[in-house]
């Protein structure tokens, strides 16, 4: 995710552009920049880090600006740096582009342009757009050049472009990434979301996928990629300016829970190789032959990432038949810390700065292990230390309790497991079914979010408890751990996750009417056993809230409430099952008056051991 902003009109252009991207900073904040149009030229300013004031020299230079475009970045290609910050320009500096999204075919385009002598200054996919437009531009018809360039691009984008030859105009394009625009006759403004436009006007036009247009204060003209005119009516935005950083949600946690259908898509984008029924994971730097030489995998992680690692273990072992060990990073670092010969070490960390994980990773490397990282933050310490791995592309996670990063980790681990399994001989039909199931996830996640009222009821029932149990088997055992952790983190109710089969080996002594148990029973393989566990709890007077597969009535007569998950392979059940557990924790915390986004005693990224 990044934030893009454009403005043409009166006023202090630099302040307006800066304020615009500051309002979008929740979308990304590792670097920023702007390009202002001045008589006959463009001036560009870029910096690494959060949005701040610009240099006095640039201020003096840009006093005659008529407008411009600005960007706040969440890196996807190329580390956060001034060089990789947007806007990106063509070789002449007369065309500037800001972009939110991922251009999936940027590498062949970049190679083709380089072969024609085009000089590249950054590592980004965005720079390709500027050079492509310049390549097609004949000096007179910018619209034709823009359209031609858009037709060549594959992937997601929201683009704002400006050209020194076309003062007073901003050119826009959208495919999958959001983009809104507005104009009143006196000014024109465009942004990644309406929150940055609302200070100017509440009447905005939402561009559709596959549309591009020219924005001026006197009007917005839109076309589709077939070059047919498109008419769109402006809609009136009804949320408060103060809400806009959270996109209208009361808390970042709730916003990020609701982002999951999109973040699941982002985690898979460009990685589903349907042609070969596998996952395309070039970032790993692993050939099929290297995979077949592997004898084991070791996962190092902390907290929620450790839970994701446990689910990853079940996936890899069942699909690729490779043994997997999962270590708490600190336990590995200060324990025996064995690294297997012919093994692979995978470090999982959302922020990429978790001190325990970083230290464990360095110890594994010291012993000669081959390492991969699974992180959300591009260019983070774990990413740099590993040098190879997979990014989540989930965008910044600002809520302290991890939600969307967890499900994105599970999606990435699913792809990793598929990649390993296919190299180790998984049949084509199984792989095709798994890919079909992965592609169905975003819509299924959306369906789960529509049931949030059901989870509120469960949260209300649990909010008065002092303790809670979460039980599950196989893939849902680590999910039980995660559900318990979420409840602890944000509502401060003590909760414990245990394997359901272990209940009878001690913890069942805790069951009484004051101890609610959340039963995770959506997997088909272990349904009978879970039903038995529920009967054991009920016969001791315990309260049960169950998560079951749609169409399964095994718990209807036994549980106080049953939440239904859409049908999915057992391995993917936790991705959907996490959503109601996150919402239960959220609503329970709300009811108890807890600070959901800033729970006591916690920090987002634990950078101490």
């Amino acid at each position: 995710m990044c934030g893009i902003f454009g403005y043409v009109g009166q006023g202090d252009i630099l302040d307006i552009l800066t304020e615009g991207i500051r309002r979008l900073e929740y979308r990304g904040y590792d670097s920023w920049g702007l390009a202002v149009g001045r008589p006959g030229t463009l001036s560009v300013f870029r910096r690494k880090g959060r949005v701040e004031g610009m240099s006095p020299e640039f201020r003096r230079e840009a006093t005659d600006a008529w407008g411009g475009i600005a960007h706040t970045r969440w890196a996807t290609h190329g580390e956060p740096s001034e060089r990789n910050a947007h806007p990106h320009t063509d070789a002449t500096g007369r065309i500037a582009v800001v972009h939110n999204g991922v251009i999936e075919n940027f590498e062949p385009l970049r190679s083709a342009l380089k072969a024609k002598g085009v000089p590249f200054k950054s590592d980004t996919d965005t720079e390709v757009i500027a050079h492509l437009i310049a390549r097609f531009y004949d000096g007179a018809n910018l619209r034709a050049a823009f359209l031609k360039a858009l037709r060549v691009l594959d992937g997601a984008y929201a683009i704002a472009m400006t050209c020194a030859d076309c003062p007073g105009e901003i050119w826009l394009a959208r495919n999958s990434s959001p983009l809104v625009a507005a104009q009143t006759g006196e000014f024109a403004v465009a942004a990644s979301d309406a929150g940055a436009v609302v200070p100017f006007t509440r009447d905005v036009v939402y561009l559709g996928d596959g549309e591009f247009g020219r924005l001026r204060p006197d009007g917005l003209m839109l076309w589709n990629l077939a070059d047919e005119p498109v008419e769109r009516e402006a809609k009136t935005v009804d949320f408060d300016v103060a809400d806009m950083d959270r996109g209208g949600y009361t808390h970042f946690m709730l916003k990020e829970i609701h982002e999951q259908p999109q973040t699941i898509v982002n985690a898979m984008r460009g990685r589903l190789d349907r042609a070969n029924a596998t996952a395309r994971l070039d970032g790993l730097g692993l050939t099929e032959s290297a995979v077949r030489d592997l004898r084991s995998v070791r996962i190092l992680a902390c907290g929620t990432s450790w839970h994701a690692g446990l689910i990853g273990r079940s996936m890899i072992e069942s699909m690729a038949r490779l043994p997997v060990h999962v270590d708490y990073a600190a336990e590995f670092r200060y324990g025996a810390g064995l690294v297997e010969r012919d093994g692979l070490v995978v470090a999982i960390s959302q922020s990429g700065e978790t001190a325990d994980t970083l230290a464990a990773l360095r110890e594994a490397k010291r012993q000669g292990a081959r390492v991969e990282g699974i992180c959300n933050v591009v260019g983070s310490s774990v990413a740099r230390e590993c040098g190879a791995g997979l990014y989540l592309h989930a965008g910044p996670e600002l809520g302290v309790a991890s939600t969307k990063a967890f499900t994105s980790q599970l999606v990435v681990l699913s792809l990793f497991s598929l990649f390993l399994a296919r190299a180790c001989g998984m049949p084509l039909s199984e792989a095709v079914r798994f890919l079909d199931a992965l592609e169905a996830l975003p819509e299924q996640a959306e369906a789960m979010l529509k049931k949030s009222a059901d989870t509120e009821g469960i949260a209300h029932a649990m909010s008065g408890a002092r303790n809670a149990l979460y039980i599950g088997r196989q893939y849902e055992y680590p999910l039980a751990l995660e559900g318990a952790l979420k409840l602890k983190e944000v509502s401060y109710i003590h909760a414990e996750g245990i394997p359901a089969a272990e209940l009878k080996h001690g913890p069942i002594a805790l069951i009484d009417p004051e101890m609610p148990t959340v039963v995770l029973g959506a997997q088909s393989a272990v349904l009978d056993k879970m039903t038995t566990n529920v009967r054991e709890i009920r016969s001791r007077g315990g309260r049960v809230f169950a998560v079951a597969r749609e169409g399964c009535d095994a718990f209807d007569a036994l549980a106080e409430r049953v939440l239904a998950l859409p049908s999915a392979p057992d391995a993917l059940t936790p991705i959907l099952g996490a959503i109601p557990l996150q919402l239960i924790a959220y609503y329970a915390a709300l009811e108890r008056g807890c600070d959901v986004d800033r729970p006591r005693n916690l920090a987002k990224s634990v950078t101490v051991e």
Partner: protein
Amino acid sequence: MQCVLFEDSFTRDSGPLVSARPAFAVTCGVSILYEAARRRFDTVGTVMRDYLAPVCNRSFPADELQTGPTLYVNASLVPDAASVRRLAQLADRGEGFMATHGDRVAAALLPDGPLPDASPENVASRLLETKLPLASEEMPTIDYPFDVVKYHLEIFERNLGTLIESGRFTERAKNVYVGKDVSIAETAVLHAEEGPIVLDDNARVMDFAYLMGPLYVGKGSRIIERSSVKEHVAVGHTCKIGGEVEASIIEDYSNKQHHGFLGHSYVGSWVNLGAGTSNSDLKNTYGEVRVGVGGRVVPSGMQFFGCVIGDYSKAAINTSIFTGKVIGVCAVLYGFVTTNVPSFCNYARSFGQVSEVSIETALQMQKRMFKRRDVVQTPEDEALLRAVYEATRDERGMAAEPLSL
């Protein structure tokens, strides 16, 4: 319904079965997939390796495809009459589907029309990209050289039954079916109690020959006097068969005229096995036969597997082929064959010599052998053999392996 028989990127793993012929022209269980497709579908197109097309389009012409539902069938699909019938049934429903086998697309129905510019390198991945719903059943394909024998035994009787039902044959004796102008010597013994014996047009069975069904003898082929041809043997047309043969496939124009055993094997076209040539189809340990394929050793899953001999290969007198060996195209064998043999290889390992058969020598041999059967060697035939020589060049690195028994 139109059907396209397509080779894919896995076709080459079948080794010499397909070096000089398209995968849909490999005989298994009496028939080839091309003929089975012709019987079932109105229009048959093909996607095969470029170098095969000029020769193969003569024998296996391809029809022009139209828009409309198109059934893609992997050219390596086991030509089981039941499988082809099942595919036709699925296709007649008109709804897109895909059937797989292991790592291969076995079949797929595209409701909207054929893929433009399909090639063996891209057709399977393009079919996978269409995200067709998967059929519940897998459809077996011939993936490794030994699979042709394995599936041959499984489908032989079914396919022979289909052949008999075609109505081309007359039942001359109980369960003995003959085509036109078939001659059977009075002293020949035909046992059809265990399965039918089918002798196609102009086949000859000479004196004191012993035939045990189920078996098939192709048009114009001769079963030599005193030979013993037993169950699950399929002989192509214009062959001469002597000695002892069981559970084997012999393609058109091949000769095994004299004594010697051939069992659980596949012999390509234009092969000559000299007198006394025998193969082993059972290990001394009675264990599973493991076969070298592409540098790996692959368990065949079979206790009985003899050998695969590619088109145009020759065996000198008394050649002895050990269990589970794969012999390439245009190979010449002498003595004991204890390893796989690359294409275009003079294999006299037990005499301390392994060298290359030059392409010119191979072309001369082809020309001479063709002439004996009144077949004219065309420029397309030459071009095909040259292309096979180039395509198999990498195999001959094996000719440099250390020489020992």
